[in-house]
């Protein structure tokens, strides 16, 4: 119920906005199908990457990891981030594409 919104951040999209986009992409030619699926998969991977990274940062702050563990974790996350960038480039996807619209639950990322 939008009468609860006193102040909204800029860049707000209309309530009925991008919902059709993903399915429209999937329904087109084979290349688009592949791109649509890549978008779906990469969004999930990106979400998981962010979650893991956030947990890692939490653990580092807690002081519950050894220096060696932090180095290994950091290396892995760095490589993961680089790989994600490569994949996004390969499929021509921007960060804004990797933002699944879940309807009333808002965007995933």
């Amino acid at each position, binding site marked *: *119920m939008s009468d*609860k*919104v*006193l*102040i*909204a*951040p*800029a860049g707000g999209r209309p309530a009925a906005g991008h919902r059709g986009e993903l399915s429209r992409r999937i329904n087109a030619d084979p290349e688009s199908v592949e791109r649509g699926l890549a978008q779906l998969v990469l969004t999930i991977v990106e979400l998981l990457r*962010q979650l893991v*990274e*956030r947990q*890692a*940062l939490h653990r*580092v*702050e807690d002081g519950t990891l050894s*220096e060696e563990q*932090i*180095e*290994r*974790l*950091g*290396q*892995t*996350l*760095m490589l993961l981030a680089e790989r994600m960038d490569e994949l996004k480039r390969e499929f021509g996807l921007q960060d804004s594409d990797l933002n699944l619209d879940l309807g*009333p639950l808002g965007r995933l*990322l």
Partner: protein
Amino acid sequence: MIYLYAVVERRAGPPAAAGLEDAPLEALRLDRLAVICSRHAEKVFAPQAEALWRHDRVVEEAMRGGPALPVRFGTTFDEERRALAALAAQAPRLARRLHEVRGCVELAVRVEPSSPWPTVAARTGIGYLGAKLERRRAARSLAEQALSPLDALAVASRRLAPSAAGLRASYLVPSARVERFADAVRGLCDRGLRVSCTGPWPPYSFVEDEV
């Protein structure tokens, strides 16, 4: 099964509203307190939009008759006796909270930096995580500084766990001061920050002790 919406001061009757599944509301009394509830066949409730808004609506209607403490979504008891026992166990604390929230509403504020952070470039794993941590701390410090003037306008404030986007805070504000508070939040928008404010809400964040 009894579904609970809010704890209130003892009063004549339940609010004039419908509960979940359009069930009629009741007020179960215990000394100086009462709990607003409805009865249902054995069932669980999905935290979907409609049910959430309905629960919130019941609490807001209850607030018309005096202070109300919202109960967490999905709280049920299979017997009236047990619900009242649970209420009795916390009665003194709840009575104090009702006094504290009298005449107040909750406002929800979110703050995040408006420009994206540049990509972290590092050579070592420690360097990478260190840079990310530093970036996160800087963002939070910025947001905290921005929020500090709001504390002066509120009776109380709580921070929710930071989200991916940024800081989230709840403010307990006297009803008469809501517009002034909203103006203060708008003032934050100029400082390279993206801000949102929703409400007024029942005092969800001010009923339990802080962890």
